[in-house]
Structure formats: C-alpha cells, structure tokens
C-alpha cells in the first residue's frame, strides 16, 4: 500500500502540467528545445566518434536507438501540450518544424547504424549541425 502510494506520488510529480498562459507555454517549448538539443548533440557526438573509429557498432546502434526514442518522446510530449493563444500557436509551429526534422534525422541515423553502414551514417548525420543551431537559436529567443 505504501509502495503504491509512493509510485502514484512519483507519477504525479513527474506529470506534465497543461500550459495555462503564454509564458508557461513558452517555458515548456524552451525546455522541449533543450531536451531535443541534448538528443541531437548526443547523436552528433556519437557519429563523430564513429567517424574517428573510436567506438563499436553495437554501442553506436544502442546509443542512436536511444536518441531516436528520446526524440520521439520529446516531440510527442510537446505535441500534447495545448497552446493557450495565437502567439503560442506561432511558437508551436516554429518548434514543430525543427522537432519533425530532428525526429526523422534521428530515425535515419538509427537505421544507418543498425546496417553498420558508415557512408549512410555520415550522410544521415548531415542535418545535425544545422538542427543544433536552429534549436540553440530557438532557446535563446524564447528564454
């Protein structure tokens, strides 16, 4: 009973609350961009280490599989937040474009990694620097 209560408590603490104002929505968008930047940069660093032959195929596959899952979860969580006004719609639209490109890029990386194809992996990683810049710019603008 006590364990169940702790579990419910932790689940409640970890829940994403709905955005009730523009400021709140902007804060959630900013946090989403930071989380996605973390996933994108992890993928970027993993690819760089792969290109320098500093890591193993199973490790690359695992790491990039995790970044893909993270990316999907981050984008999915943001999509479920209700934008409260028109200004929030604009932020949502801007960030959604970046998130969509990020999730598809992370998926392509995972596919290339599981095929252990370095050429395909290098090609799939090309959008990462631009994505990273876009996310950093979004974070700065929406601080």
């Amino acid at each position, binding site marked *: 009973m006590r364990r169940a209560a702790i579990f419910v408590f*932790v689940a409640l*603490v*970890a829940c994403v609350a709905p955005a009730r104002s523009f400021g709140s929505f902007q804060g959630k968008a900013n946090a989403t961009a*930071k989380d996605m930047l*973390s996933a994108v940069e992890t993928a970027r660093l993993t690819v760089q280490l792969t290109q320098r032959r500093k*890591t193993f195929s199973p490790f690359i596959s695992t790491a990039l599989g995790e970044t893909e899952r*993270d990316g999907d979860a981050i984008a999915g969580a943001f999509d479920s937040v209700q934008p409260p006004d028109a200004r929030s719609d604009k932020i949502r639209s801007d960030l959604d474009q970046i998130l969509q490109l990020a999730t598809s890029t992370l998926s392509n990386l995972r596919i290339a990694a599981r095929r252990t194809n370095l050429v395909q992996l290098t090609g799939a990683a090309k959008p990462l620097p631009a994505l990273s810049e876009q996310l950093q710019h979004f974070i700065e603008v929406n601080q």
Partner: protein
Amino acid sequence: MRAWLPLVALLVWLTIWRVRFSAIEKFYGLLGLALIVTVIALIHSGQTHILWPEAKHLAPPKGEGLPTYFYFGIALLGAAMTPYEVFIFSSGAVEEGWTRADLMVNRANVYIGFPLGGIISLALMGGAAIFLAPRGISVSHLSQVGLPVSAVFGKIGLAILLFGMGIAIFGAALETAMSAGYILSQYFGWQWGKFVRPSEAPRFHLTVLVTILLGACLALTTVDPVKVTEYSIVLSAAALPLTYFPILVVANDPDYMGDKTNSPPLNAIAFAYLVLLLVVAVATIPLMIVTKAGQ
C-alpha cells in the same frame, strides 16, 4: 530488445544461489575497479583545469535554481549512501564471520575503497561536464556516460568502461537482491544468510528469488530504469536517518562494541552528519514537489 533480461535475472539468481558471499564480494569488487578508466580518461584529457573555477565557486549552474541544485545534491548523497548498503555490509560481517582481526581490512575499505568510489563518481561527472555539458547534452542514458571515455581512449577505453559498468551493475543487482532477503528475514526473525544451507533458510532465498523476478518484470516494462534509480535514491536519502541513527547508537554501546566504541571527536563528526541527514530527510519531499523531480 530486452529479451536477454530473463537470462541475466537467471544468472543473478544462480550466482546468489551457488557462489559464496566472500567470493561474490571479492570478484565483483576487484573487477569493478575497471571503472578507474574514467579517472584516467579525465586526467588524460588534459582539460581538468576547466572544472576548477566551477568547483571553487559553489553555486548553481547558470539557469538552474537553488531548489534544483539542492535536489540533485540530495540525489548524489542518496546515491553515495543508500540504506540497503547498511544491511548488505552488516549482514556480510555475519556471513564472513568477521573478528577483531578484520578491523584493519574494513578500515582500509572505508578510508581507501569508499573514497575511490567517490573519485570514480566525480570523474564520471567531470567527464560529462567537460565533454557533454558544453554541447547541451543532459545525461539520461548509460550509453551517454561512455562518450567521454570513448573520445579520449577510443575503443579500448570504451571496452574497459563497458566491462566495468557491466560488473558494477551486475554487482548492484546481486547486492540489492540479497539485501532484500536480509532486510525481510531479519525483520520477521527468519533464518537468513548464505552461511547456512538453502534448505535451512528457505524464506530468505524465496525473498531473494521474488525480488529478482520483480526487478526483471519491472525492467521488461517501458519504465525508464534511470528515472526509477533517480527516484529511488532520492527517496532513500529521505530514509537515511532511520538506518544511520541506530548504527550511531550501536557504535556507542560497549555491550556490542567492547572497547571499540566511538571516540568523542568521532561522535562530534557523526552527530554533525546526523543533523545533515535530518535536514535532507525533511527537505527531500518538498524539493521533489517544487522542482518537479529536478526537471
């Protein structure tokens, strides 16, 4: 993806069932030293000077509030000292039949082994601060921990790190499963331990088996194991005074300790630490709510 989990669970159970306590302790303790590669990698990176300014200036990082800073501080304390370790350590003393002659080994363990573990933890954090934080990477998976070592030492370093991590995680699974058996058996007054035949301590072994099964079932769900660990260590920190205080009482009881009771200076340090743990215990849940578990 997680199809290997039942196999690992079986291996954990078989190890506890078949291998002697002292063999488990020495084998996993010594092989876990492979994690020293994180310390060597950090030094070899030649970038430790980056860490000093922040280390000297104790304040939250830019953009992080004091509550979140203290929440993660509590998480670190909980990770370094969890209540289950008290049970595995004290039960281990009975399992191995410690005498006064073992005091030196245990002092070495406390004065060398524990700080070494702390240095490895610091090296992991230092590696993340140098290689990951500047890129905006927030560590949420074990695989990310391998990236700094891989960047410094390449495949060999990564292989040593993964080996050490595997040993440490497997060792932790053994410890927590056995600890569950010790805690429940000692609470209910059942016969416990690996120093008797399994047929003489059936409820102890059943508890261990059920714990392993529950752990494996939890790991087979989509629950994030890192998050589960994070929440459990934070809640452990809140419970620390409940295990620390009785030990402090016993450490001052000549009936148990003979002439080895705590000295007054040691008691002063121990009491100051108890006060710290009480503050932590009171602050943990409010900080967890205020910071949304450090988010």
